[in-house]
């Protein structure tokens, strides 16, 4: 059940002009959050910006005894709300609602987990990598950006024992080109008898391309979708994506099994990639 906490900013770690990691004290949320879930943050005390912003939980923060103490978010400065979060000072309190949404469904050995991240789509994968490590699942991160300087926090994944595959569009680090290049090669080389599940988060064209690769190679694929969200609780119907079939956990869906405007907040943000009608997902 989600709770709303007036969470103090513990740290604001700047990664670049546009990216920062914001750590927030929220033991109640940290204690129950599962990989792929999100929080809704009020970015200002006033009414402009008015609405909260959804953020994947980036890390579960623990105190010196290992007890859950808070969560961090991976913020990219885009608009008014993310700009406020970019420069927020330590000690500031921000209303934080969570944890929200349907989590990733991890896999167990002998299956492997391949996480594919593009840009700010790195956000849900630290918590997933930690959960997979705890289960002893062999995990690889495929992480792409335009150039080397835009690949952040790779050390967090290395510390979790994750195999790292990088790509940059300018070739400054890792494979030159988009992350689907090394991913496609790896999928082709992997024998069908060796199960692997894909977990994808990033720009819409990248997720669509990964979903197609997963389908062609007959691999399970979860995507974490980001949509403009009003409430995070299923109240406003803003964050819909066109998805096929019924939600496996709630049974919600259109009668007759037609593609249906499905709420990303409560039926997602994690979807089976093959449920999503990609042609209808707004690109960003």
């Amino acid at each position, binding site marked *: *059940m*989600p709770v*709303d906490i007036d969470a103090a900013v513990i740290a604001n770690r700047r990664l670049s002009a546009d990216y920062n990691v914001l750590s927030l004290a929220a033991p109640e949320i940290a204690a129950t959050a599962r990989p792929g879930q999100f929080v809704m943050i*009020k970015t200002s005390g006033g*009414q*402009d*910006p*008015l*609405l*909260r912003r959804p953020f994947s939980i980036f890390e579960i923060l623990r105190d010196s005894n290992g007890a859950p103490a808070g969560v961090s978010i991976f913020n990219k400065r885009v608009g*008014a709300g993310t700009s406020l979060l970019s420069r927020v000072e330590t000690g500031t309190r921000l*209303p934080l*609602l969570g944890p929200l949404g349907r989590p990733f469904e991890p896999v167990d050995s002998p299956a492997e987990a391949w996480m594919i991240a593009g840009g700010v789509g790195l956000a849900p994968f630290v918590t997933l990598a930690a959960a997979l490590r705890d289960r002893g699942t062999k995990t690889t991160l495929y992480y792409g950006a335009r150039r080397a300087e835009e690949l952040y926090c790779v050390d967090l994944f290395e510390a979790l024992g994750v195999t790292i595959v990088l790509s940059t569009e300018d070739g400054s680090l890792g494979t030159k080109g988009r992350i689907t290049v090394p991913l496609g090669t790896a999928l082709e080389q992997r024998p069908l008898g060796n199960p692997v599940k894909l977990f994808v988060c990033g720009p819409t064209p990248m997720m669509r391309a990964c979903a197609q690769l997963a389908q062609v190679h007959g691999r399970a694929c979860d995507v974490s979708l980001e*949509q*403009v969200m*009003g*409430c995070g*609780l*299923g*109240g*406003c*119907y*803003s*964050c*819909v*994506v*066109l998805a096929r079939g019924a939600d496996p956990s709630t049974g919600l869906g*259109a*009668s007759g099994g037609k593609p*249906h*405007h499905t709420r990303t907040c*409560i039926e997602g943000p994690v979807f089976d990639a093959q449920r999503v009608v990609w042609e*209808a997902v*707004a690109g960003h």
Partner: protein
Amino acid sequence: MDLSLQIGSLRLPNPLIAASGCFGYGVEYADIVDLSTLGGVAVKGLFLSEREGHPPPRIVETPSGMLNAIGLQGIGVHRFIAERLPELRERRAIVIVNICGTTLDEYVEVARILSDAEGVHALELNISCPNIKEGGITFGCSLPGTHAVVSAVRKVTALPVIPKLTPNVTDVASFARAAEEAGADAISLVNTFLAMAIDVHTRRPKLTNIVGGLSGPAIRPIAVRMVYECRRVVKIPIVGMGGIATADDVLEFMIAGANAVQVGTMNFVDPFIWAKLMDGIRAYMTTHAIARLQDIVGTVDTSAREKAWISS
């Protein structure tokens, strides 16, 4: 301390109602809000059949407010009764169903079906959604249309009938009067203001539907004025809404003339708002020694202004 009020045959324990379109079907919030403590839950607008609504993006933030063009996505009245109403009954919610239609006959049919359903307490007639072309708003923007749909629904239901008025008319009070004359038990206002936002870089509208409805604190003073105008011409209860964020906002609407209020957009911002509003109302009643909250309805004191006007 008495916070209750009467709408037709329906007794509400307090004036705080969750606004239609802002609270799903109520069940989405049942784990975090005790639905039985609310004055009512106005569920998302229902047509006879399912509707998919508009493609996203469906909302855009604006200063102290937001535009929406959801397009009345909904599961239709039959699935609502089968799949959502049982839980609302179990949670002891006072259920106000917002009903829609593309034709007069559809309103009547939806009203008839809901009148036979156990656990529906009132009908709010959506004749004011700015986001769909057919039906709805065409009734709400015409005095004969408003009269016709209210009286037609009135004839087929014993439930309290609450037409929800649009602010996108020149004189909302005349629509309030038309609704009262047609037999409405109460009126609710305001629905959203038709509005638009444009991305200057792409020169495209920010909403797929091009235009949408503005809600939130940005509209509150206009909504208060409209409630005030309606109070002067109708005797039936008024359910006021428009950007209510605090207990003072609730009280402002009530003093302007609302018997109850709905909270919509600010529930998105703070889903735990209900207890805070209730605490604030109780504190106000204590401070001002008010035993019955309904005693403040329509008590705005304009006498000083009127005297000044006469003497000038």
